[in-house]
């Protein structure tokens, strides 16, 4: 049998069943003993705070390397996987404790990053002064959902196939959980609640996509014990249905947003073409094009021009409005490029 065939075979729940030993390996990893709970929680919250600190500073410094470091340190993957596993083995106590750990981890992350912003990032006062790494996390799209689902599948696979565990850091990087939370904290502190909501949506997207994917992989890997399997995967189904419903609910705003981004890009291209015809001497330095709901288009443009008498904005507004068939508000800032050279002596 080909390696691919073997793998597919391994995924078939009817043929593969985890041994009791394998299952206990997984649950020991995920479900914390009451005896060690204190130590586990102390480790969890320490890592949570440290990872958020790294994320907040990395975001503020606009440093991808530091942000990835934060992702590697982040301990959130354990309670997420535990939540999925607890659902499947019908362990209500573990389910509640995993969800509780998860929720308090989220609160600690947001609180820590608000604190960091208050103490150390006082130059962040408006959304205009924010680095691109922060702004990029405020507008999740369907792409992010795709990444989260794929990474969740990988996470579930690694968990149920311990030999693959060296891949876990890759999973953690793909579905970053702490950087979006740190972004939420920073934005809340400076009062940008709308954008904080966007970052939190990104976190929720990652969270539920992982839970759903992990449940799928665990079911396929035969993680569910035989006595529970006889009950017809009832709990697995509940878990699957709940996370699927939540994911669909999340997919709606993500789809709307993605469609909006694509429309804005298309609109920006239209504006670019019209600018070239409007004033051949003008070079676009910066262009923000936004098609708003209700059919209004807003264009903010910076052009540099070599002409001392640049074309007026109303001509461009007319041309763009004609092309897109809706009202257009255009603001142009002109940057006059004049060169003067001399030699003496």
């Amino acid at each position, binding site marked *: 049998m080909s390696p691919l065939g073997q793998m597919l075979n391994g995924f078939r729940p009817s043929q593969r069943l985890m041994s009791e030993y394998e299952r206990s390996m997984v649950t020991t990893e995920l479900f914390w003993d009451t005896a060690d709970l204190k130590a586990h929680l102390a480790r969890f919250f320490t890592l949570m705070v440290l990872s958020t600190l790294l994320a907040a500073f990395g975001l503020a410094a606009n440093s991808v390397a530091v942000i990835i470091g934060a992702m590697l340190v982040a301990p959130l993957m354990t309670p997420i996987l535990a939540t999925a596993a607890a659902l499947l083995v019908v362990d209500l106590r573990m389910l509640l404790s995993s969800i509780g750990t998860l929720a308090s981890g989220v609160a600690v992350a947001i609180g820590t990053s608000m604190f960091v912003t208050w103490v150390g990032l006082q130059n962040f006062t408006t959304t205009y002064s924010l680095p691109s790494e922060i702004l990029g996390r405020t507008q999740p799209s369907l792409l992010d959902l795709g990444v989260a689902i794929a990474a969740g599948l990988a996470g579930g696979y690694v968990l149920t196939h311990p030999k693959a565990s060296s891949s876990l850091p890759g999973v953690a990087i793909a579905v970053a959980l702490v950087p979006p939370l740190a972004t939420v904290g920073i934005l809340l502190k400076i009062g940008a609640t709308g954008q904080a909501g966007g970052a939190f949506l990104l976190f929720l997207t990652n969270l539920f996509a992982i839970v759903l994917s992990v449940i799928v992989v665990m079911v396929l890997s035969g993680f569910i014990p035989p006595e529970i399997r006889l009950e017809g995967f009832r709990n697995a189904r509940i878990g699957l249905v709940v996370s699927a419903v939540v994911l669909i609910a999340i997919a709606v705003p993500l789809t709307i947003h993605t469609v909006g981004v694509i429309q804005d890009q298309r609109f920006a291209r239209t504006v670019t073409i019209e600018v070239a015809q409007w004033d051949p001497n003008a070079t676009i330095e910066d262009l923000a094009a936004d098609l708003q709901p209700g059919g209004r288009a807003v264009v903010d443009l910076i052009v540099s021009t070599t002409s001392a008498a640049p074309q007026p904005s109303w001509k461009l507004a007319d041309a763009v409005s004609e092309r897109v068939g809706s*009202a257009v508000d255009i603001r142009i800032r002109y940057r006059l490029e004049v060169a003067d050279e001399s030699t003496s002596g």
Partner: protein
Amino acid sequence: MNPHLAERLALVTVALALVAGACAANDGRSPEVVTVFGNQRGADADALRSVFDRFESETGIEVRFTGSASFPTAMRERVEEGNAPDIGFFPQPGLLKDLATSGYVEPLRDDVAQIASSSLLPSLSDAFGSSGDIPGFLFQVNVKSLVWYSPDAFAAYGYDVPATWDALKDLTQRISADGSNPWCLGVSAFRASGWPATDWVEDIVLRDSGTAAYDSWVAGDLAFTSEPIGSAFAGFGNMTLEAGSSDRDRRGILNTSPAAAQDSMFTDPPGCFMYKMASFQRSNLPSGMEIGPDGGVDVFLLPGSSNESAPILIGGTVAAAFNDSDATWELMRFLATPQAGTAWAERGGFISPHTDFDSGAYRDDFDRRMASLLADADIVRFDGSDLMYSPVGTRSFFDAMVLFIGTDLREAAQQMAEDGYDR
């Protein structure tokens, strides 16, 4: 064949052919389009759009509106390039007059002039003073001689709304003596920087020297270098530019926009107590702020020089045609009627110049109050700078105020404004 019958048949054939031809011509053509160019943007442009929507649904004629912040420059360029819109919406009747002198404007058709003037508020009949015939009609007006203030701040500091010019001067001095700044002021507006100060000078000329001098000055007969205008410049300077009169120094005034100048009125303690600004300032108020004696902000009419009713300076939009097509005149006829403005009035920020405008259409009490202020006024004049020869009214007068605010060189500023006349 009976020759009469042949004749008749021929006539019928010709008639049928004409009808068919007309149908074919109509079928092949897109609906007629009338282009309108003005200075409205954003929410005002939307409000205007709702006026045109009503016209479009009644007539099937399409209206394409463009509004530009640099209307005076852009309109002149369009007309001179032979690219004039069908209709211009002029905040500067002076510019319209200049273009008419050069023969670019279609004279108002009699029926349109008749509709517009038949219901014009009597108080507005002399608004253009002696500036001669303007080939357009007022579509919308705003009240300029207003002072915005915070009733709460006035109550807290024990100040009363002044009823006379002397009382206003006393209040200004009293607020200064109390260690506060009486006036808010900001004149930064790109190419139109200085305009709020021109309103000050105009209001003072109207109050101190009367309508005859005002009209003669606006018409270009009384020079900027004359004594009445010089004393109005000085009056404006004494009231607002002396140290401690405004919450900003001269440089600050030049760098603050008229929309933002009011902001320090709403701080605690207030950075300034009074802001002389037109009724359209309402769109720049902090969101949710109510206007009225019990609201966060209210207005009083800039007092007259004596106890008699104060003269009112207005701004507004004058519509004029640059195309003689029937569709253009159909839109002009519609805009001249009192009902045309209701769609805008329902959205707020519109004051009608007509007597039989339905005051129930106004969105709120503030707009209704402005309308009745205008209706009851004895003396109303259009904003002088907007009415003047446009190289003066939209350029040298503005520049002169910037010079005066920046340097206090009053006579040089007067001369600078006067130099806008190429005489």
